[in-house]
């Protein structure tokens, strides 16, 4: 499959159709898996990595699946296409920038993806819209069952699924929930929430933007422990924490509407106005403004603008997406102009109104 086929769309997980979509963008579960008969990626020879890749191409990508699986050879992609796959969260930055034989297997809906020769031989990933940990687990558990028929997993009764980094050993499972928490940020409660999370061993990080920088008020919460705690116990823990954070965020939204309605109204209207009229727009500013607009839609301060479109704009205004959409390479300044133009056009089509 050619990444160009994905440009006009978003994965289903970004369409805001899942449970608690006003706060939760998506649920992701990853499983780290390695082949028992090969050294881990960092100690494997190029030849051995190529063999792993061949097993995936010839067997793993051919397992029964609800939707057809497509094999994408990453070492053959240019920098822009690799960046594009990172923005879509189909591959990690590490895999994009690595060297040697490596690949990703993706289904049509972008619900399932399998990174090949990342830190571990396989990183299976399932994405779902909204808070859907059980559904995501069922999906990935069944993908995992089918892959184990053709890929001999490194597993020991004592340590579980063996991984290159001891922080992943055991279940090899990392479940992450991506939340949009603008009201907790505005009311300055976000730090408090994070401190509480740290105590129960969950990891929080900012999403989008460069590196680990939080932008657009998106945060991702993941479990940290993979050894000595079953998948279901870890999922229960992360589900309960997320329920709480969702509750806090909703309370904060109610509070700001009740106590500072005019200020919020102004903030949202200005954000929307700027997005509809600016001629230069950086990635950071876009994130900030879209975040305010997303909040505005969710608390009823903006009508006529579907959340699906707002989510899509977050993705489509990322640098690689923008360049793919425009069909040409753009430098920083050109990108800012193209981004502003794209936002104006898309928002004009939708025709939202501040209330």
């Amino acid at each position, binding site marked *: 499959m050619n990444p160009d086929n994905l440009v006009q769309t978003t994965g289903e997980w970004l369409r805001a159709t899942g449970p608690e979509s006003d706060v939760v963008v998506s649920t992701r579960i990853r499983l780290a898996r*390695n082949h*028992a*008969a*090969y*050294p*881990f990626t*960092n*100690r494997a*020879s190029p*030849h*051995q990595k190529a063999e792993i890749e061949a097993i995936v191409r010839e067997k793993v990508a051919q397992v029964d699946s609800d939707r057809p699986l497509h094999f994408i050879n990453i070492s053959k992609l240019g920098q822009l296409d690799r960046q594009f796959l990172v923005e879509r969260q189909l591959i990690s930055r590490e895999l994009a920038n690595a060297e040697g034989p490596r690949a990703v297997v993706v289904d049509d809906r972008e619900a399932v993806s399998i990174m090949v020769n990342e*830190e571990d031989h396989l990183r299976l990933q399932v994405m779902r819209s909204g808070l859907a940990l059980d559904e995501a687990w069922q999906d990935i*558990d069944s993908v*995992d069952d089918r892959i*184990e*028929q053709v890929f*001999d*997993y*490194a*597993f*020991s*009764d*004592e*340590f*579980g699924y*063996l991984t*290159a*980094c*001891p*922080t992943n*050993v*055991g*279940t090899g*499972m*990392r479940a992450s929930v991506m939340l949009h928490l603008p009201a907790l*940020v505005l009311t*300055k409660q976000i*730090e408090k929430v*994070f401190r509480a*999370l*740290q105590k129960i061993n969950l*990891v*929080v*990080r*900012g999403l989008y933007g*460069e*590196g*680990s*920088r*939080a*932008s657009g008020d998106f945060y991702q919460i*993941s479990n*940290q*422990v993979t*050894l*000595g*705690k*079953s*998948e*279901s116990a870890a999922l229960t823990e992360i589900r309960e924490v997320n329920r709480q954070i969702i509750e806090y965020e909703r309370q904060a939204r109610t509070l700001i509407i009740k106590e500072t309605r005019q200020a919020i109204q102004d903030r949202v209207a200005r954000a929307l106005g700027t997005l509809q009229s600016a001629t230069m727009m950086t990635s950071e500013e876009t994130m900030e403004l879209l975040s305010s607009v997303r909040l505005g839609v969710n608390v009823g301060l903006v009508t006529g603008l579907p959340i699906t479109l707002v989510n899509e704009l977050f993705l489509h205004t990322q640098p690689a997406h923008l360049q793919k959409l425009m069909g040409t390479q753009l430098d920083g300044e050109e990108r800012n102009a193209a981004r502003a133009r794209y936002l104006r056009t898309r928002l004009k089509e939708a025709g939202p109104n501040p209330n």
Partner: protein
Amino acid sequence: MKCQLCPNPATVHFTKVVNKKATELHLCTECAARQQIPSLGELSLSAILQSLIGQHVGPQAEEMSRLTCPTCGLKYMEFRREGRLGCPRDYASFRVGLEPILRKVHRSTRHVGKVPRRRQPSEIDLSLLDLRQQLRRAVQAEAYEEAARIRDQIREKEAANESR
């Protein structure tokens, strides 16, 4: 670049965002671990891991520093530096050094959860891994006859596993 909290070289670089204000942080591994910064991502988890390796393997350090995995050739000191294991055997090769780290990171040293459905409960079979590594060394040494012999062994073993 130097760590912002001590004179060591900075190895962890990230941006902390508090109330929409971004602060650049450049820390050494130890300081990053001590900070327990909540916005630390998975990447920095491994930085924390590296400092744990330093802190918790003290008593066995002498013994551990002499260890090398016979299968992948990883030295314990390399694991200590990079925080990554080299092959499935390393969980046995470096067990003494790993257990205190696992206890610290996971508060456990024993797997609970999914077990591959296909597999009989027994010790992990590493014979194919060893054969593949022998093959790699034979090819490197241009010992092609031996390489061919090992390739046959691998094929036999794989066929036996298929029909299992």
